[in-house]
């Protein structure tokens, strides 16, 4: 089970993930991100605070999306990862190529600078 809550403020979209990002739920997130990118979203923060688990199918979605963001100029920041989720990003080398922040405030601030 994955729930994706979305809030928008001007150019900024914040996604809050709740539950598990696994092989079953990853396609839902992929779909939602594609829609947002298509809608011309300029800045995006993804809040992982309530995400309990991520598997490689979830990493795959973020890597593909980060590549797309780089190309189309969307600014992306991730935040509030639980230790096991952060560990998965770390082991995969994703902490080096994605902007990850401890708090939502820091993530949003990074998108403004």
């Amino acid at each position, binding site marked *: 089970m994955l729930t994706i809550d979305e809030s928008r403020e001007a150019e900024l979209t914040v996604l809050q993930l709740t539950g598990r990002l696994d092989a079953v739920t990853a396609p839902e997130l992929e779909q939602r991100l594609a829609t947002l990118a298509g809608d011309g979203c300029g800045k995006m923060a993804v809040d992982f605070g309530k995400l309990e688990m991520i598997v490689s199918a979830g990493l795959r979605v973020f890597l593909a999306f980060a590549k797309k963001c780089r190309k189309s100029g969307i600014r992306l920041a991730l935040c509030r990862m639980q230790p096991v989720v952060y560990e998965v990003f770390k*082991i995969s080398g994703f902490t080096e190529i994605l902007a990850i922040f401890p708090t939502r405030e820091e993530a949003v601030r990074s998108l403004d600078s």
Partner: protein
Amino acid sequence: MEILRLPAELESLERFRKFVTERAAESGLDSRLIPKIELVLEEILTNQVMHAYKEREGEAEVACFPRRDGCFCLQLRDWGPEFDPLKQAAPDTAAPLEERRVGGLGIHLVKNMADHLEYRREDGKNILTVCFKKPAV
């Protein structure tokens, strides 16, 4: 040793997961280890569904057992073509974003999360044993 065998399909993930986490909890494992065990389980099951059986139907089997030294172990079996995940080259986790290939991280995560991994081919089955140490208190 407790064993559950189900059709190798994504719909079976949730039942395998419950089976394993209940056994892990019973075994008195530190609950902080559970997400790691779930991750390893899901990566391997997903590979069985996606790669071992590709388009065809098949079965996946998961066994749980304690090792004498107190480790909690999983054994995952499939009847797909021989495939030793331990022989897979590690992905380049240091490449910059533009050069990173999408995918290929599942086995890498499994290797990093497990304390002990062993592969063997037997009777037409791929048998992967994964053990987790109980953290010292």
